[in-house]
């Protein structure tokens, strides 16, 4: 029998991590080649929660697509709605009223804070800071309460409609939101006090998962990951959409591009988002909250019992839906994870011929190999948390 030759120092072992593992933040499978504890190669395997949403959208009239696309990236549902509604509005050239723009901006920014809170809580949990999860989810709950107050749902609210928003904000909403806006910067300060001088957190995040800015751009990475590497690229500043040009806010950037910078950028973004919400609340214009085009927007409930025309419009919109003339559009917005683009192809019927989402998690995941190869397996887990992929958005 031949003697088994084994060099324990250089033996490469292939390990499967996931798809069901708490540290993968969803149903993500990683095939990792390990040499000791060092990652030598890595391949993400995705598709475990592919539900064919894009295909299903082709069978739905335009207004029924909205709740569908919300369920792709289930943490930033307002952004999915805005990407789709904004794309359709641009196809039919429907201008939305200023109040709707402001309301949308408020809810998008609240959603950004919510998304970053989920990220901070779960990522800190991966790094052993268990208490962070409870603190972050405490504030997240207040945001969900606000969503519930305005839309009736805590998640997947279907609040944005083509033409504006479904309902105006209720009485008492503004006061509750002002309390939140007052408290949130204090809470962010508390999170930083817990983490910024925490020896374990610092040594786990500093100088780990570094990828150069040039490489990130080649890989198409956008959002906080790119900004942490020092590139001040933010679609809210670069392109003119919703009410963003009217607000004063900063785009936080990092210097090194390591996991610590990624953490710092996102935490700073929470404060900036709070500022945007506050300014939007101060400047919230009066007026209609949804456009007044009866060919696309449901007539008010009160008119249905008095106006025959409204009843017909209502009936047509609810049964067939509105038709969108032939055309195609790619509309991109800045989601918490980067450039969220929505491609809609209209063929003149009441259903879209194709809906495609350029999901930032899907594209950003390509950088994970660059972040992790050559690092320890523990740093790989940290990098994955800082990458913040939402697998519902990756697989769609």
């Amino acid at each position, binding site marked *: 029998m031949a003697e088994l030759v084994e060099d324990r120092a250089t033996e490469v072992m292939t390990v499967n991590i996931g798809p069901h593992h708490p540290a993968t933040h969803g149903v993500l499978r990683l095939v990792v080649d390990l040499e000791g504890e060092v990652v030598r190669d890595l391949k993400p395997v*995705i*598709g475990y929660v*592919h539900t*064919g949403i*894009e*295909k*299903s959208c*082709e*069978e739905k009239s335009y207004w029924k697509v909205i709740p569908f696309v919300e369920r792709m990236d289930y943490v930033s549902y307002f952004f999915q709605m805005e990407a789709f509604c904004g794309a359709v509005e*641009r*196809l039919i050239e429907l201008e939305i009223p200023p109040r709707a723009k402001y309301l949308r901006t408020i809810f998008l920014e609240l959603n950004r804070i919510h998304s970053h809170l989920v990220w901070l809580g779960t990522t800190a949990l991966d790094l052993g800071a268990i208490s962070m999860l409870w603190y972050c989810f405490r504030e997240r709950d207040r945001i969900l309460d606000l969503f519930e107050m305005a839309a009736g749902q805590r998640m997947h609210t279907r609040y944005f409609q083509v033409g504006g928003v479904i309902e105006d904000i209720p009485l008492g909403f503004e006061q509750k939101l002002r309390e939140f806006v007052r408290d949130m910067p204090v809470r962010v300060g508390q999170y930083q006090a817990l983490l910024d001088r925490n020896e374990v957190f610092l040594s786990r995040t500093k100088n780990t998962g570094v990828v150069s800015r040039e490489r990130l*751009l*080649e*890989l*198409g*990475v956008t959002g906080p990951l790119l900004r942490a590497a020092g590139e001040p*690229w933010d679609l809210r500043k*670069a*392109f003119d959409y919703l009410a963003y040009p009217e607000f004063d806010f900063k785009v936080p950037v990092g210097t090194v591009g390591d996991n610590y910078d990624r953490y710092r950028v996102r935490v700073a973004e929470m404060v900036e988002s709070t500022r945007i919400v506050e300014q939007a609340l101060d400047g919230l214009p009066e007026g209609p909250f949804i456009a007044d085009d009866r060919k696309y927007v449901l007539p008010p409930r009160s008119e249905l019992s008095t106006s025959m025309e409204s009843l017909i419009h209502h009936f047509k919109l609810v049964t067939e839906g509105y038709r969108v003339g032939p*055309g*195609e*559009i*790619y509309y*991109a917005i800045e989601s918490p994870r980067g*450039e969220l*683009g929505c*491609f809609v*192809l209209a063929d003149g019927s009441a259903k879209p*011929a*194709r809906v*495609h989402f*350029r999901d930032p998690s*899907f*594209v950003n*995941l*390509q950088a994970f190999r660059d972040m992790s190869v050559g690092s320890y397996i523990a740093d790989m887990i940290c990098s994955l948390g800082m990458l913040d992929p939402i697998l519902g958005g990756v*697989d*769609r």
Partner: protein
Amino acid sequence: MPDAPGLELIRGEIEAAHPGAVVDTGFAQERAVLSIDPAHVLAVLGWLREAPGQGYRFLSSLHVADYLPAEPRFAVHYELLNRGRVERIRVKALLEDGSPAATGPAGQRLPEIDSCVSLFPTAEFQEREAFDFFGIVFKGHPDLTRILLPEDYVGWPQRRDFPVGGEPVTFTYNERQYG
């Protein structure tokens, strides 16, 4: 977004270097669109990326649209972005259904186009997705396998002629029927 004369200048310069590359130009919903012959896709994308004064160095999105029953049927969309000037341009490579060279699992002819991973590494996942759902073969892609669907899946589900709800799903009440 380049304006109309700008787009015609781009067309003229590409035509001078690669005759027959540009099929059509146009504007659609806030976007300059350059429709091209798929045989020249790398030349056009490379020119838009490298030529002085162009510098569309960021590929925002690569996706496919199925224009059935129009001919050519497919188009691969490249949403290019110049971050310095904040300008977007869309390049559409129009693809006929089924070239003779490539064949799929059931002997089916698949449309083919050159992979742009060498120019834009970000296209790797997105080209795999396009292959997965539309059966478009990207020549020169390092690992052209299915990405979201199971590797043994047969068919190209996001094509317009692929039916929705065609697969039986087993529940307990119809277990005997579909078993």
